[in-house]
């Protein structure tokens, strides 16, 4: 019959983290690497359960419990610090038990806590490969992370410099400012049309954001179709659009466009089996080659006219008239105004 010493000789070579226990659960031979984890505490002669806590199987509290175990998998941790967790297997032999242990997932901490070297692991142990893989993957992950960071920075920079509204494909506010500055600088004769959707919030609230987005895209398409190639159609934000018409010969042309926009936008917009209904209010300001007409000034005037249009009723348009402002403050339509019917300011409804 094979003696404990013969078995220990083999185990010493094959698995440096083994323990041999007698029938009472007392440690006999110990693998070199396992003993290296507790250099000041010789394990031989100690009770297994004085060294380790058995986490699995549960309820192994006494040597009798241990002795009752058959061939079984173990999860252990040291009772003293560092409480490294270990996985293992227990095999009954005639003289008692053989327990073989390994670090499992706690390997990374273990090599640091105990300054282990590759010589401490069994020749067949994948520990070194695992450590290699962890480092290699960390390095690769770090490279990926730094790439992601740079790409994100580049994306933000590109968005900041973009001239296009991503939802509608129209020009954005940034682009609009550039165009207006150029036109004003050239002393051009141009018109600004400020368009605001009526009932848009209702669509968003009742039919959802997807419906709202669809409406914005649909309306954007109409605006592009109803304007000339050289005109600028921009989304200023939310449901507000600003259109710029260069080389405006007569006001009537702009009013015709406003009328057509209002007419088309108020048509029902089907979306996902439902119908979205919005309309458009429009304010118009015309530069008229006046030197005081800065871009900001014109947009402000168009907004005043839009305000007047919204106040009059929905789905209408107004052209800015100086009577709409008193000391830079818009005159309220309801308070005995100049904007109502019979007003000299051009107006329209569809």
């Amino acid at each position, binding site marked *: 019959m094979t003696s404990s010493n013969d078995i220990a000789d083999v185990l010493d070579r094959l698995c440096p983290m083994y323990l041999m226990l007698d029938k009472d659960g007392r440690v006999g031979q110990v693998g070199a690497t396992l003993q290296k984890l507790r250099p000041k505490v010789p394990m031989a002669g100690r009770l297994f359960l004085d060294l380790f806590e058995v986490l699995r199987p549960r309820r192994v509290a006494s040597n009798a419990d241990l002795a009752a175990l058959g061939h079984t998998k173990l999860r252990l941790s040291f009772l003293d610090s560092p409480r490294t967790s270990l996985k293992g297997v227990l095999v009954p032999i005639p003289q008692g038990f053989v327990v073989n242990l390994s670090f499992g997932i706690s390997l990374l901490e273990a090599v640091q806590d105990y*300054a282990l070297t*590759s010589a401490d692991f069994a020749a067949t142990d994948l520990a070194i490969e695992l450590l*290699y893989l962890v480092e290699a993957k960390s*390095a690769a992950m770090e490279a990926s992370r730094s790439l992601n960071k740079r790409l994100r920075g580049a994306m933000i920079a590109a968005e900041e410099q973009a001239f296009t509204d991503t939802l509608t494909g129209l020009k954005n506010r940034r682009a609009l400012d550039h165009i207006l500055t150029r036109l004003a600088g050239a002393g051009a004769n141009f018109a600004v049309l400020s368009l605001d959707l009526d009932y848009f919030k209702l669509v968003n609230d009742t039919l959802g954001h997807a419906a709202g987005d669809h409406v914005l895209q649909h309306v954007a398409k109409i605006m592009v179709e109803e304007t000339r190639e050289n005109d600028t159609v921009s989304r200023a934000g939310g449901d507000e659009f600003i259109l710029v018409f260069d080389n405006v010969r007569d006001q009537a042309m702009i009013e015709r466009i406003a009328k057509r926009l209002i007419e088309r936008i108020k048509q029902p917009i089907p979306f996902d089996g439902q119908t979205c209904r919005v309309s458009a209010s429009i304010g118009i300001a015309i530069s008229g080659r006046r030197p005081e007409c800065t871009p900001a000034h014109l947009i402000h005037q168009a907004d005043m006219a839009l305000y007047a249009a919204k106040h009059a009723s929905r789905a209408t348009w107004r052209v800015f008239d100086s009577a709409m402002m008193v000391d830079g403050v818009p005159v309220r339509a309801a308070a005995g105004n100049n904007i109502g019917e019979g007003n000299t300011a051009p107006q329209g409804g569809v």
Partner: protein
Amino acid sequence: MHGLINKAIQSFVCQTYGVVRWDQVTTAAGLGFSEFEAMLVYDDQHTIDLITALMSEFDRPLPDVLEDMGTFLVSHPQMEPLRRLLRFGGETYVDFLHSLDDLPDRTRLAVSDLHLPAMELVDHSVASYTLICQPGLPGFGFVMMGILRAMADDYGALVMLDHDGVRGATEYISITLIETAFAAGREFDLGARAG
């Protein structure tokens, strides 16, 4: 060519000769950019143009430049993670030499789309070896020369290396081990993960 290889060339030139020189090389190569991303894959032609530009910009034979690059990859502090990965190959320089057979597979384990040429170590005696670098990456043998030399330093071994030339795109390096424990070598602590 994998970004890691292009990035290695970039790091080598920038650290050894400076960013200005690197910009000259990329301009001469007509790349149109000067920053490689380690985790992207680039057109092979970029790397070929880069190497051609390296040859003309540096008044040195290409093998010498490539060998310096190999040395840089192991010995520069910035490349510490790579040195550590190579040291996982074994406890001694001879273990390390034998682990080179597995290097392409190990590399693929970490970065699945990075393909290095297959290598085979033939041992003639305990002190005499030939490393055979299969085709795939022209000049790779010269880079390996630099890596082998720097790793010998790392292990504290004393070796003589010779590039025995290229036969049918296969490169042969002869390695003569003079002393395994010539110097103390550098520390390799399994648990000290390179930041």
